[in-house]
């Protein structure tokens, strides 16, 4: 370091630029995540505590029904499953984020209930694996 003032000037600028670039990159990643669900067929994979509990072919559901998932810590999530979509109707977790996430009908983002360690992810039925890789890396 020959110039004593140099790091003072460049470190904040460098940090600022990298944070800004990261934010912009994330923003465009979010925009590109959106997915056209029309005419696609999905499995709903339900994971609890890291284990896959169920895989429901959503396009075959003819009548809506509810499914109760009880996690190890005693919390429950009540899922509502209809043709082509799935949602969490009721949950015992305090934040209720999984309920507010609403209806899941494409594979862009999974429903996650962190307190009860529940994840619901849609997976496309045909050539679904390539799509999954694209979304989750």
């Amino acid at each position, binding site marked *: 370091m020959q110039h004593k003032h140099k790091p003072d000037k460049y470190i904040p600028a460098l940090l600022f630029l990298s*944070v800004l670039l990261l934010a912009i990159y994330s923003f465009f990643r979010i925009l590109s995540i959106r997915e056209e669900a029309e005419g696609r067929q999905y499995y709903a994979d339900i994971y609890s505590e890291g284990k896959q509990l169920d895989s429901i072919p959503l396009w075959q559901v003819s009548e809506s029904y509810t499914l109760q998932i009880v996690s190890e810590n005693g919390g429950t999530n009540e899922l509502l499953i209809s043709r082509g979509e799935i949602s969490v109707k009721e949950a015992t977790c305090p934040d209720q984020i999984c309920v507010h996430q609403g209806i899941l009908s494409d594979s862009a983002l999974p429903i996650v209930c962190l307190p009860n360690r529940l994840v619901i992810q849609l997976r496309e039925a045909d050539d679904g694996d390539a799509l999954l890789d694209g979304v989750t890396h």
Partner: protein
Amino acid sequence: MSLKRLTNLALYTTLSLAVYAIESAFPMLIPIPGIKAGLANIITMILLRENSLRDASLVLTSRILLSALLFGQGMSLMYSIVGGYSSLLILFCVNRLLKGRFLFLTGAIGGLTHNLGQLAVAFLLTSVPAVLAYLPYLVLSGILAGCFTGLAAGYCRRFLSRIDENHS
């Protein structure tokens, strides 16, 4: 620990707990797990900037334990601890590097670290790779929320440090 210091830190703990309680009473704007303003971080940053890492970690620890006791449940403590301490450590380093200037930048990096830490915990607990789809959301929200809390800390610290001086 002197009585004055104990009282001061208790005051800061109360402040951050109150801010935390007010924030959690607000309705959620975006229904994505992990996205929040993190207003209690303002207090942590002020303490880090004005006092020391030791004071900041004492208040952070008290706040995390008290909030878990008052509002939380088992699992949320884990997220708070990992997110809180990883961001505290990064905040300390960046604040050192920037010599206390540009608090908004420090905050942005701290918020980013906080969210990355929490996502790592979420991934470990659920072990479903699909939760990583939230990465860009959490990166962006961590940076934005951190910028905001950093700015707020920059404005608030003048008034809060004045409280310290007047009563010494």
